[in-house]
């Protein structure tokens, strides 16, 4: 990006607190200032025929056709097939039969660890965006805790350029709040914004000092940028690896108390109030934390939050006595009551979005002793199926398999498709201040088509990700993306990843 363009973007970001919109696509390519996907191949028109279109933001829930041309939605309406054919032989669209499927604005996962640069053995931009497409996402935000940490403009630019060269879906870099995410000195946020970063976080561990956090929020505020907090008071967590309580007692493992998250969340909410900075709380895991967010929103504080599918659908009971390191994540699996409180917060609007906290790890690392193995589960390819299976459900699909505690009895049917789209498409963009994407004429054609009945056997071979450390291995889920269009181009078609 030229200096002028960068200045312009910063000015826009500063002025409105609004993210840069997707630039008008040059026909056949996709050029946007903040996001990139591999480009250069002409985009043929596409007709999505007969899907149930769900977009609560524009009040749409109807069965209709979508015609996509030049990377945008050219038309929406019943029976567009004949009109499209009238274009003539050059512009004959690719027709995708979507009867029985849901078409939604493209899903976005704002909490992904792509591992590039530094740990390309676990994941790369190429494999991570393949996994994203496979999971139904048109865009993902990449956390900065790579090696090196993404804490300067040139490192954000590296990621953007890798995404332009190899990414199948849009990649939004998240920059570090502090140099090296060490919590000691402000990182160059303005520089990173100019190079494509969309938000800031020291994810992986919390910024321990309240003073430093205040400095970060005060400084970030000038850009209207969201600061994302990983809430973990390290003094309370110590060596903790599982929820402090029943699990830590039974398994003889160091406990990670709920209070360590809640104290940090309460502190950062108060600092958001003090500074006026937009605050987003990552991967909340406890009843207390979502309670704090609910109260803060009532008071008008600018705070949003996400929850992960693993915290929604698993609790510490799933640990059993197998010491399965795929169930070791940070924050840890909590109690059944916490899990139920997260579902309630999802349904009452306290939770703004679902995020997977996709954390790929090498098998030899996860094969270590529980206390030595790294934290994290993959999530990009199971997030949508888990939401559909456990909260929407369908007449024909079974529940998640035999993994202890993975089912929410009686939960299917608690979520409607409109709310799911809100939580996985609109909510994530709003949290990061990205331009909204709607199912309407003229909109950028970032679209996810979902087959609610498609069976998803969660086995290592299922994953496009370079890693298979899923907490849900061995289960069978229902509901999967079959098509993903990014700027009108297929990243997923017939359930298969398209492209390099």
């Amino acid at each position, binding site marked *: 990006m030229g200096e002028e363009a960068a200045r312009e973007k910063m000015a826009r970001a500063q002025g409105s607190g609004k993210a840069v919109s997707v630039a008008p696509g040059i026909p056949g390519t996709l050029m946007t200032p903040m996001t990139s996907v591999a480009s250069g191949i002409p985009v043929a028109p596409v007709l999505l025929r007969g899907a149930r279109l769900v977009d609560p933001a524009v009040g749409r829930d109807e069965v209709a056709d979508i015609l996509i041309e030049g990377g945008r939605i050219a038309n929406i309406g019943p029976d567009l097939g004949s009109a499209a054919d009238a274009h003539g032989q050059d512009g004959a669209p690719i027709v995708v039969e979507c009867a029985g499927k849901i078409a939604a604005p493209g899903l976005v996962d704002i909490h992904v660890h792509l591992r590039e640069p530094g740990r390309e053995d676990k994941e790369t931009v190429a494999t991570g965006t393949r996994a994203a497409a496979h999971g139904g996402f048109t865009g993902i935000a990449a956390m900065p805790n790579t090696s090196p940490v993404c804490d300067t403009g040139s490192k954000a630019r590296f990621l953007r350029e890798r995404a332009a060269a190899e990414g199948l879906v849009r990649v939004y870099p998240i920059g570090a709040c502090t140099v090296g995410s060490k919590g000691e000195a402000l990182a160059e946020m303005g520089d990173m914004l100019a190079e494509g970063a969309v938000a800031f976080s020291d994810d992986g561990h919390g910024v321990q000092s309240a003073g430093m956090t205040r400095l970060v929020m005060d400084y970030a505020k000038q850009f209207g940028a969201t600061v994302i907090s990983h809430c973990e008071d390290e003094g309370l967590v*110590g060596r903790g690896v599982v929820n*402090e*309580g*029943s699990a*830590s*007692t*039974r*398994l*003889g*493992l*160091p*406990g990670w*108390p709920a209070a360590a998250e809640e104290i940090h969340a309460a502190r950062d909410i108060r600092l958001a109030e003090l500074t006026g900075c937009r605050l987003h709380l990552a991967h909340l895991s406890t009843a207390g934390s979502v309670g704090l967010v609910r109260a803060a929103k009532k008071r008008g504080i600018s705070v949003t939050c996400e929850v992960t599918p693993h915290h929604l659908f698993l609790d510490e009971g799933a640990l059993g*006595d*197998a*010491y399965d390191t795929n169930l070791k994540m940070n924050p840890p699996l909590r109690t059944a009551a916490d899990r139920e409180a997260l579902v309630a917060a999802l349904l009452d609007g306290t939770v703004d979005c679902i995020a997977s906290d996709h954390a790929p790890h090498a098998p*030899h690392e996860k*094969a*270590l*002793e*529980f*206390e*030595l193995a790294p934290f994290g589960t993959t999530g990009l390819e199971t997030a949508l199926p888990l939401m559909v299976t456990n909260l929407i459900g369908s007449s024909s699909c079974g529940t998640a398999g035999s993994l202890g505690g993975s089912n929410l009895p009686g939960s299917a049917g608690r979520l409607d498709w409109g709310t799911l789209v809100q939580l996985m498409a609109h909510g994530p963009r709003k949290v990061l201040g990205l331009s909204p994407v709607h199912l309407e004429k003229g909109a950028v054609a970032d679209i996810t088509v979902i087959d609610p009945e498609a069976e998803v056997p969660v086995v290592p071979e299922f994953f496009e990700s370079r890693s298979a450390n899923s907490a849900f291995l061995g289960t069978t889920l229902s509901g999967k993306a079959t098509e993903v269009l990014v700027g009108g181009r297929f990243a997923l078609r017939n359930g298969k990843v398209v492209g390099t």
Partner: protein
Amino acid sequence: MLATKHIISIEDLTPAEIELVLDTAESFKEVNERRIKKLPTLRGRTIVNLFLEPSTRTRTSFEIAAKRLSADAVNFSGDASATVKGESLADTAETLSAMVCDLVVVRHRYAGAPQILARHMDAHVINGGDGMHEHPTQALLDLFTMRERLGRLHGLRVGIVGDVCHSRVAGSLVRGLIAVGAHPVLIAPPTLLPARADALGVKAVTSLDDVLPELDVVYLLRVQMERAEGMPFPSLREYARLFGMNEARLARMRPDAIIMHPGPMNRGVEISAGVADSDRSLVLDQVNAGVAVRMAAMYLLLGGED
């Protein structure tokens, strides 16, 4: 013989199997009194003592037990930390498996390590202590000692005093006592109690003196003097005053009540020298029972395979 292949948790044994181990240990204890203390039972079998955390007492006890049953006992020591040692526990397990051994006794500083071994090798696994989780043969020898001295286990009131939350000894003993119908109670300052004693099905109290007169057994845990995160109580002096077993407290106990300790003892901290050396203290009986109980565990896991 036992239904379980491994003894990783005391809960791998049914209450009837716990009794079987203790009964079997009784006959082995008699063997240990003979001039020739060796049986041919496990001749030709290979037992590896995989001790990845420093331990002399427990390793020696297992080694003597294996040798008295005529097994070939091999000691394999090292550093638990894969990051230091460079070989993962899974690889160590497969290496030992390739050497073809029959039983591995594992001591490891991290909970769940025996499960990794069990997943990666064909041999039987006895947990010789994993992190803060369990140490089942210690619980078995403690149950043996209680039963031998008091004549029963069912209904016994056992106070487990001290650093419960970091203690694998307590982790197995509580489960074992509950399994045989005894009534354990945890006694410690709140900073040394587990987060959820009820998850183990046990009550916790913070005053030793309140419950002392009701107890049949006072089981003292070793105070860990070498703690990285700072001491969870102000001083050893204060600990001894509140939770240490001394002659004055001994006088308040039931006349037949006993004192136990898994060793090694910190005299003057959790136990006074006078109590440690009194006839109410069964510390050396525990050590003695350890060899017999471990012989019984090895025999019952391996002996029926021929």
